[in-house]
């Protein structure tokens, strides 16, 4: 449905995206993941024909973005970073305008309007001026606009920004429900969102794709050891050496609490049974024992950090502000 081949975009001497290649099948939901300024928005703007690529080709539903922009635009529902709403119009007026631009008229427009308003629960505010609505409502009006003409391709730039946790879950459910019938690309820097709704993740950093796979496979691929978290009632002096002595244990890292440890084991070995036996035998007071799986967050940081180190050793690594890591 979407085919991007080797696209590059340069602003003067600055290269915003560099030879990006990926594709999205029909009905697939793809997450575009990356720190701010990685090139997510630029890629989306090229796909929506807002700006042309410096090099490379982008095709949507078989139409080339440079040669047939009007056809491409008809296939796409696009929600930019900032919801593109007119403050002086009411929700209904605005969506009517959007429908008219899309060539929907008469009864078809009325039903599209009702469906879109219903889907995003805008019924109570449909006759209010958008300028008087809260950020969350505006975001939903923006989404309603993208969904209005039921396009086969949806491009959503950070669709859950500004929403409260309940709304975030609703919007994620909505996006999930679109999978199968619609191809969706959504950009986000909220990692759990990508895990929650997407079948495939493209991680982009400094304009280059650094990884592309399912969320599970990505974490599996980058995992170098099995990790087990162990919590004991106290911290006996000899426990570290005894744990280290278990065959298969690579490293024992003391945790922050009194009796917590993070134990790295050889890849492919589950040592929980053995660890439990040692702890019980020595009467350490075993409180908790669980495997630690690598989250997408770790994957992301590892990948982007690796890139940074190899590219520019002096530059600090990508960090994500804690406030942005909202998980619903």
């Amino acid at each position, binding site marked *: 449905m979407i085919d991007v081949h080797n696209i590059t975009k340069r*602003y003067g001497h600055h290269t915003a995206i560099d030879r990006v290649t990926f594709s999205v099948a029909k009905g697939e939901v793809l997450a575009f993941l990356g720190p701010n300024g990685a090139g997510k928005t630029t890629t989306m*703007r090229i796909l*929506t*024909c*807002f*700006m*042309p690529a410096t090099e490379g080709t982008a095709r949507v539903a078989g139409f080339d973005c440079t040669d047939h922009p*009007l056809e491409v*635009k*008809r296939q*796409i529902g*696009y929600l*930019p*970073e*900032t919801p*593109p*709403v*007119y*403050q*002086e*119009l009411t929700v209904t*007026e605005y969506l009517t*305008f*959007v429908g*008219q*631009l*899309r*060539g929907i*008229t008469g009864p078809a427009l009325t039903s599209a309007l009702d469906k879109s308003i219903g889907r995003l629960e805008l019924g109570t505010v449909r006759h209010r*001026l958008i300028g008087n609505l809260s950020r969350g409502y505006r975001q939903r009006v923006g989404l309603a*606009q993208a969904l209005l003409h039921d396009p086969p391709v949806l491009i959503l730039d950070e669709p859950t920004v500004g929403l409260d946790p309940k709304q975030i879950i609703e919007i994620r459910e909505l996006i999930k429900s679109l999978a199968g019938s619609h191809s969706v690309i959504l950009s986000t820097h909220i990692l759990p969102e990508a895990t929650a709704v997407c079948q495939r993740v493209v991680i982009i950093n400094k304009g280059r794709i650094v990884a592309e796979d399912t969320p599970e496979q990505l974490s599996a691929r980058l995992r170098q050891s099995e990790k087990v978290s162990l919590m004991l009632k106290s911290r006996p002096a000899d426990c570290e050496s005894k744990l280290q002595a278990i065959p298969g244990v690579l490293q024992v890292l003391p945790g922050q609490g009194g009796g917590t440890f993070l134990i790295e084991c050889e890849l492919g070995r589950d040592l929980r049974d053995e660890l439990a036996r040692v702890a019980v035998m020595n009467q350490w007071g075993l409180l908790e024992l669980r495997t630690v799986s690598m989250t997408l967050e770790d994957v992301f940081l590892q990948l982007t950090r690796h890139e940074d180190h190899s590219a520019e050793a002096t530059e600090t690594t990508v960090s994500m502000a804690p406030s942005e890591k909202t998980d619903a």
Partner: protein
Amino acid sequence: MTPVQAVIAKELRIYFVSPIVYVVGAVFLLIFGLLSYLYVGFAGAQAIQLMQMQGGPAQINLNDLVFRNLFASMRIVLLIILPILTMRLFAEERKLRTFEFLLTSPLRINDIVIGKFISVLVIYVGLVGLTTLVPTVLMLFSDFDWNPIWTGYLGMVLLGALFLSVGLFASAVTENQIVAAFVSFGMLLTIWLISGLGSLFGDTPAGRVISYVSYMEHYDRLVRGLIDTSDLVYFGSGLVLMLFLTHRVVESTRWK
């Protein structure tokens, strides 16, 4: 409904929800009314003087004393007021990020430019239409020739349309509305002053070419009651040129 019609409807709706049209309209009509009152007052004073000199009823020409002066004064009023009306057209869209939405909707840049121009032209023509109340009221108390008044109105509509197209262009080059208003004001004033430069050269070919570029002599002829095709061509081509340049500027933002 075509995309152009949708754009016109949306622009008109926004104009009438926001206070711009009411404020600009009120000021425009107030000044037109005030100028009419002043010129009629002067004409009255002149008539009384003439009566005293001649010792009998005097004939004065309202076309010359009132309407020509009135239309000539409107140039400066339009120059100041119309940039305020056009400044938001593109600048606001860019500021509020709806510009990206328009350019990713399935409509041509021409549709956007023409839709926006027509919407503001409709408002302007509506305001000019309201001013016909002045000659209509004067008709009840005096006698004058309507033909030069119609050509004067034609001149005002053409001059206003040209100003609006310059304003539309200025609005497309920036996302700051104040800057947009100032740029169009500056451009219009410059084109005005070019006529002064033309008269410096006198009746030489260079002087005639420079004078032709300014809207002054073209507008003056219409106000005097002359319809010359060269003047109509001037306004028509100026308008098309500005709309074309606006199109290019909007298009070029995609490449930046």
